[in-house]
């Protein structure tokens, strides 16, 4: 991407700002820019969300299908991520240009959701060894304005929060076949337990400090970024009394690096700590926003905005 | 000096050697390269063989799977052989799906093994119409310096010879399959096909036969691998194939068959000694 042209003095200005934890747009090093989030935007999907962070626009739809579990994991469902970089997001995505980026994002998501401490696949099981749910998480990048990983993970978590799985009764028939019974009532459904679902935080290294959610100017001052996937806290996603819910410690579910540079071990350690703090704030804010929206849907007060409605 | 000469005038460089009755690597026309063989070195596969002919390195690994036999042949198992020419073995091959040449090599190797009938597919059937073994034999080329097919066939045959099949019990009522890996029986391999490659170089009015050519020699003789492949199986000729290159006189053909036969004896002995040493 042809970044903004910056003189070396401007770069030093940004670098000094980061050093003093006061960036050129007034944020601290772990502050995000304002975001817009909306759930339930695609009526044909089981769950969906749209997120806009600065110039990045992401639409996520979750589809559900019934599948046969893997023989080595009979009691678990499946989840798959598919990223599509729309060609009008940025001119670079034309043809097969976005393929590599799309692959690396879906890989990152797959890795972040791998552990059952982040997303328990057991809740997708219908009948052990025979039938399970398979979630297809389709991520569409409508506009690319940097910081994709963070935006995608937020939108995916919101879409999964919004996902409803119909109740299915399973009974074992003769000959090892499974009989499935679906309720006639479309509202007879359960929600997913996604409190622990991970959020990815990208930390851009500028000088020897790291910042989250870099602006385009800041991005051009950095050669390497670190992506930290941090598991969420279910406490933030519950409306009921939160005292009896275990306060789960945030853990790293994946770490990866992006970009052609390298980092000193000390910077890496600081960045991981910083990422966890940032993820905690982000998780809390996301939980609040999602609960508020759900509340609004229940009392039929929800205002739809955005282009899809 | 010599390297630069080779780069600028590859044909002339080669001609100079041939006119002195010697090949660029110092071999005589009918001399083959040293062969090294190692079996069962890859423990993750059921059976394996690593072959080095000069610089050419080929690895064969066999994976076992179970499947229902084809409806047309309910009493046969499957033998699936594939040759993979990796992009790392030579700058000629690029990543991606197999090139035409790779498919040709794959076909020849499969043909040689199938035609020689060294594996009876009926031996691979466990229960009629219900269950059979599938032998996935994947042959990969790590370093391609000519004489590829010789090495592929040798690696494949030596791995097949060391392969043992675990004991399978099948319950026809519940369709339950149980595999006992502690009890194993060796696979029956009849015969031992050995392929020998030749390159045919047009030198003035006559053709010169080069046994076990290197990649450079193959390139000089028209490219795309060896020109003549002769395959013997326990004293019987089980296939000859000629691809491009110069014409071949009757005497030369007879000589090629004779050379191949001699080499076959050597290779047979090599494989047998190697497997004997391994089993000790």
């Amino acid at each position: 991407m042809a970044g903004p042209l910056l003189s070396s003095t401007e770069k030093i200005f940004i670098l000094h700002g980061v050093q003093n934890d006061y960036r050129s747009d007034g944020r601290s090093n772990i502050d995000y820019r304002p975001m817009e989030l909306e759930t339930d935007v695609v009526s044909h999907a089981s769950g969906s969300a749209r997120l806009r962070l600065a110039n990045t626009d992401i639409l996520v739809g979750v589809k559900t299908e019934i599948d046969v579990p893997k023989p080595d994991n009979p009691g678990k469902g499946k989840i798959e991520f598919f990223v599509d970089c729309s060609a009008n997001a940025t001119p670079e995505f034309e043809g097969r240009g976005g393929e590599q980026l799309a692959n690396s994002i879906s890989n990152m998501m797959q890795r972040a959701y791998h552990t059952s401490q982040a997303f328990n696949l057991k809740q997708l099981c219908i009948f052990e060894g025979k039938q399970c749910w398979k979630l297809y998480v389709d991520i569409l990048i409508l506009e690319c304005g940097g910081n994709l990983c963070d935006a995608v993970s937020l939108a995916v978590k919101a879409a999964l929060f919004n996902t409803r799985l119909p109740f299915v009764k399973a009974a074992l028939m003769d000959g090892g076949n499974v009989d499935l019974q679906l309720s006639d009532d479309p509202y007879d459904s359960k929600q997913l337990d996604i409190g622990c679902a991970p959020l990815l935080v990208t930390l851009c290294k500028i000088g020897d400090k790291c910042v989250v959610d870099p602006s385009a100017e800041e991005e051009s001052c950095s050669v390497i970024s670190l992506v930290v996937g941090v598991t969420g806290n279910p406490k933030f996603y519950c409306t009921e009394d939160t005292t009896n819910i275990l306060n789960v410690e945030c853990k790293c579910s994946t770490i990866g690096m992006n970009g052609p540079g390298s980092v000193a071990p000390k910077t890496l350690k600081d960045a991981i700590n910083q990422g966890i703090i940032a993820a905690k704030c982000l998780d809390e804010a996301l939980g609040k926003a999602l609960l508020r929206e759900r509340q609004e849907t229940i009392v039929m007060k929800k205002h739809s905005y955005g282009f899809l409605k | 000096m010599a390297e630069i000469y080779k780069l600028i005038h590859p044909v002339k460089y080669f001609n100079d050697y041939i006119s002195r009755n010697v090949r660029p690597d110092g071999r005589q026309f009918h001399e083959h390269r040293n062969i090294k063989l190692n079996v069962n070195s890859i423990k993750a596969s059921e059976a394996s063989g690593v072959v080095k002919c000069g610089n050419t390195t080929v690895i064969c690994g066999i994976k076992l799977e179970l499947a229902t036999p084809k409806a047309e042949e309910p009493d046969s198992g499957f033998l699936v052989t594939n040759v993979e020419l990796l992009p790392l073995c030579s700058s000629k091959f690029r990543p991606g799906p197999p090139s035409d040449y790779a498919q040709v090599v794959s076909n020849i190797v499969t043909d040689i093994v199938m035609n020689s009938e060294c594996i009876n597919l009926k031996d691979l059937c466990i229960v009629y119409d219900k269950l059979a073994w599938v032998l996935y034999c994947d042959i990969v080329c790590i370093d391609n310096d000519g004489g590829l097919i010789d090495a592929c066939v040798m690696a494949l045959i030596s791995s097949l010879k060391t392969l043992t099949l675990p004991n399978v019990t099948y319950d026809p009522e519940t369709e339950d399959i149980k595999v006992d890996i502690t009890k194993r029986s060796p696979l029956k391999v009849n015969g031992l096909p050995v392929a020998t490659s030749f390159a045919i170089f047009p030198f003035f009015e006559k053709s010169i036969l080069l046994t076990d050519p290197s990649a450079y020699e193959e390139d000089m003789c028209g490219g795309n691998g060896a020109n003549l492949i002769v395959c013997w199986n326990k004293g019987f000729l089980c296939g000859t194939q000629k691809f491009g290159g110069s014409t071949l006189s009757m005497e030369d053909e007879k000589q090629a068959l004779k050379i191949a036969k001699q080499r076959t004896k050597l290779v047979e002995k090599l494989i047998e000694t190697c497997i004997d040493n391994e089993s000790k």
Partner: protein
Amino acid sequence: MPLDFRRFNGPEDSVSYTRFTQDFLKSYDELHNELINKSNLRKDGRALDEARSMFARTDMISQAKGSAYVELKKTKVVCSVFDPREIPHQNEFSQLGQIFCEVKFAPFSCSRQRRPAAPDAEDKSLSVALRQALEPAVCRHLFPNYQIDVFVYIIEHDGACLAAAINAAGLALADAAVPMYDIITASSIAIIGDKMFVDPTEEEEHVAMISPDSENVNHGIITMSMLSELKQVSDFIQIGSMDTDCVIKAMDILEKECAKLIPNIQQVLVMNVVQNIEQQKKLEEEAKEREAALNAKLEEWKTLLNAG
């Protein structure tokens, strides 16, 4: 999945026979308890913090510019590097050279299943990780608009294959005389509960990737590659779930492990240079002999010409 017409395919419904063996569905606890015996040693007799000895050599592949082979007991990896070539399908000028990496598992490399012949998601993610690890190590400004191809083939996978691949690629690049800033080494660690398995085997990695039923137990794998002289981490990949203290502790161990590999790699590289110099000397001597013979012939002709 679409059928691959360029290869011979087996029957569609074939399954590995290991599914029907008794050991297939072992519980997590069984698998876990098997890893360590009573005297706190691993299955292959190593202590927890003991890495496997690495065997490495260069100049494996005659057709490649540079190549290397790395073996960690059963894990076997071969890598080759080719001459720089122009970046294909690119119109713009690129100031920095590019590195193209491809990692591929052999179909027979894994004991659990047969690998598909076409690259799958794991192959691709390893390729990306390898590129990430190598980019900071190579002086890319020296070959603008060119790309270096690095191909890695995993012949046998018994754990820590990404670390082995990075080590092999580093050696192969050095063998191909690609200018680099530092020697690159990589090491891997598996974490299961409070135990850390340095340089894990495939079995240990498998257990580390399963999340145990009891909540909040650390588990996962970390691979880190380092430029030890410059004290820089060029790639860091963590999968699983673990708290920060655990990550940082593992990072310290990996840093030491990476440094331990350096003398080994240096030795291989020095051997490589010594051999090359000897080879060069031999060639030069031969060239001299030939030249002397030619000169003698020339003199002979000259005398013949003069004589008559």
